[in-house]
Structures are given as structure tokens and as C-alpha cells.
């Protein structure tokens, strides 16, 4: 834990040093501010206190992901077009991180509170051949909606039980600050990778 704090402190410092640009809508750069060590910064998504359940039936809060950079996406497992592709994008990103992949959390939260219970999430994880550093989350309608608002993900439930949704890959720093977002499927993730590597170097 001490190591994590140190890592966090250094990364927070490096962030403060290098992020002085303005937000640009085209590149999706989002600037965040650093916070004191050991507390959750005010604008961190880890302030969310809702609980989620993992594919292994463990109850967690988002702050349990603190200490490592985290890649977050929102999907649902019955999706037959966008979500498998978005998941593949995240896997590819993981591959490009090489041996650093273990130092990053990959978190997939489901829109589908009615069908994506832990068993189903475990099956999806297996089917999609996702590594151990991937966590899939089930949450209440309220918790999922709140997360979507924080991550600027739009979604709507359709009558057939499926979802219309935007596809966004979000990078969080080790303390849960939103660092970078990229929208689209099979998008160019050079910048996403760069941001992750910067966080890892920190």
C-alpha cells in the first residue's frame, strides 16, 4: 500500500507538472488536478460510494481500483455489435502495453442490471478471453446511471432489453481522476496508450 501511495504521489506530481494545457474538444484531452497523497481528490470518480459486484461475486467500490491507472468502459454482454468490438479495442490496448499491462486495471461496467449478473459476466470474461487484470462489474440502475454521468457515456434502454449507447474508453489516474477519453470503435488509441504510459512512468 505504501508503495502505491508513493507511486500515486509521484504520478500526481508529474501530472501537475505536465498538464497545463487547455481542454480540447477534438482530441478529447481532459486536464485534471493533482491532490494530496492518501485522500481521494475532490474531482475523483472514486468518490462514488455506490457498490458494485464483480464477476467473482465480490462486492466492491470504485475506490478499490485506486493505486493503479485504470481503463474504464461501459458495455452489456448481450450486445452483438459495438460491445464486443469495444472490448476487443481494450484488449488490443492491453496488448500494446506489453509487460506493463499488469500495472493497469481494466474495468468493464455493464449497463444491464437485469441480465448481467456475476455468472453472466464471468462467462463473458471467459468467452472474450480476458486476462486477470480485467474486472467486470454489475451495479444497480442507479449506480450505473451515476457512473455513466461521471464518464460522459450516453445510454438508453430499449424495449427489447438491449441498450443504445455511446462507446467511450476512459483513462483514470491511480487516484481516479479522469485523464483522457476517446470515443468510437476501432479508434486510433495512440494517444490513449501515450497517456497510460505517462501515468505508468509517473
Amino acid at each position, binding site marked *: 500500500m505504501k508503495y502505491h501511495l508513493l507511486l500515486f504521489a509521484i504520478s500526481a506530481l508529474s501530472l501537475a507538472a505536465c498538464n497545463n494545457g487547455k481542454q480540447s474538444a477534438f482530441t478529447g484531452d481532459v486536464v485534471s488536478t493533482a491532490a494530496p497523497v492518501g485522500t481521494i481528490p*475532490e*474531482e*475523483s*470518480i472514486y*468518490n462514488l460510494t455506490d457498490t458494485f459486484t464483480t464477476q467473482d461475486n465480490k462486492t466492491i467500490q470504485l475506490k478499490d481500483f485506486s493505486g493503479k491507472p485504470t481503463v474504464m468502459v461501459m458495455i452489456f454482454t448481450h*450486445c452483438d*455489435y*459495438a*460491445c464486443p468490438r469495444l472490448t476487443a479495442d481494450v484488449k488490443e490496448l492491453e496488448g500494446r502495453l506489453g509487460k506493463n499491462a499488469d500495472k493497469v486495471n481494466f474495468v468493464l461496467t455493464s449497463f444491464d442490471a437485469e441480465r448481467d449478473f456475476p455468472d453472466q459476466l464471468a462467462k463473458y470474461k471467459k468467452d472474450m478471453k480476458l486476462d486477470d487484470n480485467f474486472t467486470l462489474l454489475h451495479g444497480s440502475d442507479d449506480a450505473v*446511471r*451515476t457512473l*455513466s*454521468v*461521471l464518464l*460522459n*457515456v*450516453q*445510454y*438508453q*434502454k*430499449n*424495449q*427489447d432489453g*438491449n*441498450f*443504445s*449507447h*455511446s*462507446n467511450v474508453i476512459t483513462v483514470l489516474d491511480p487516484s481516479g481522476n479522469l485523464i483522457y477519453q476517446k*470515443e*468510437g*470503435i*476501432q479508434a486510433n488509441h495512440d494517444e490513449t496508450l501515450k497517456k497510460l504510459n505517462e501515468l505508468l512512468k509517473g
Partner: protein
Amino acid sequence: MKHFLILIFTLLTALSAVAQSVSTEKKMVRIPAGIYTPFFKLPGTEPTPMPAFLMDETAVTNAEFLEFVKANPQWRRSKVSKLLADTNYLKYWKSDLEIGEKNKELYNSPVVYVSWFAAKAYAQWKGKRLPTVAEWEYAGTAPLVNSREGTLTSYILNWYSKPNPKVLPNIKSTYKNTFGLFDMHGLIWEWTFDFNSFIKSGDSRANTTDELQLFCASSTLYVNNKSDYASFLRFSYRGSLKGNFCIANLGFRCVKDLK
């Protein structure tokens, strides 16, 4: 004896009247079940049955919100998290726990400059919730009780064609609809639980999107009535929002499921 009973009855009635005036419980209106036709139609979102529910008769007022802030210190202006409310949060109040003498006429006006997170927290505190877009739109389409005031669309268009008033009028100062709801249009915009379900940008000239890449399960969006400009304005407005935004003409009301 008879007189005595009458006296007791009168006393009781008086007492209950006092109790009622002290009580801050807001009147909720039963919105009857029916069919909801979404303005933006996706394949799979055809007209759907809408169960009955309860909805606040009016928007939440400053005085009501003050009670919430008193009971929940984390929602005071000086304490609120930047993640959950931007720097405009309740900016017109005199202080954390005072709406202010200067704002006396606002006590009974809708609270504005509140974020989605704050509105949601208020609803939870009251044992209620925020309405979904579907519920809000369904409730909002009911016509005016007094049709001499014009059609609903003309009422709304008339509202937006005037700049914001200097002082926000009190609740119940506009119109009542046939469900018994006040000011659904014409006073403020209102938060909805799933305001971010609007799957498109504000740029909607074609009213279509063939971007399968961005939008799962939808190839074509089309609208119910292309000349319903009032609805377009509402959906565009929702599409421009983020959860922590606090805006001059944006407040909320709550709903509750029927047991």
C-alpha cells in the same frame, strides 16, 4: 354534549389545519397509466405502456431545498464536491443556510443552479426519485386545463421567445395541466434521471444517424413530429448537460412509484 362534540371536532379540524400548514410534505399527483410515444424513436422504442406513478405537483422550491441542505451538510454550498456540482451551485443564495432577505420572493420559486447529483440526492432523501425522460415527457404532454390560454406548443414557444426573467416567478405561476401538474413548461427546465440517454449530439439537422460505429442497436433515429420545435429544444438542452452543471433556469421535481 352535542355542543361539546362539535367543539372537539372544531378543535381537531383546526389542529389538523395547523399541522398541515407546518408540514412541508409536498403534494404529489397521480399520473394515470397510458401509452408513451417517445419523441425520438429508435427501433425498439415504439410507443410503450406507461404505468401510473406519483409526481410532485410543482418543482422543488428554494425553501424546500434549504431543508435538505440543513439536514445534509455535504450538500452545503461551501462543502459540496466539485465532482458533483460546479462552482455555480446555489450561487444566488446568501450563504450556505440562508436564501437571504434580498431573495425573499424566491422562497416559493423553484430552486435552480442545482446539479443532477444534488437533485438526485434530494429525491433520495425524500424517499422519492427523479423522473425518467419518458415519465417527464409523458406527464408534460398533458394539455392546459384552461384551454383559453392556448395550446401547449404555443405556450411553450411563447415562453422560450422571452428572455429569462430577472426574478424567477413562484411555483404555480404559469399553468396547470389536466393531470393536475403545475408549470411543466414555462417556468424552468427540469432534470431527469436519464438525461444522458439522448444518443446524439446537438447537431441533428438530418434527424438521422447512420453511425453504427458510435451507436449500438440504432441505425436510424427519427422523430415523432418534425414540427414539434418545443420538444427539439428540450432534447437539445438535455443533450448539452453534464451531471455537475448548475444552471440559472434548471431545477427539478420528483416522482415516486405507486405501491
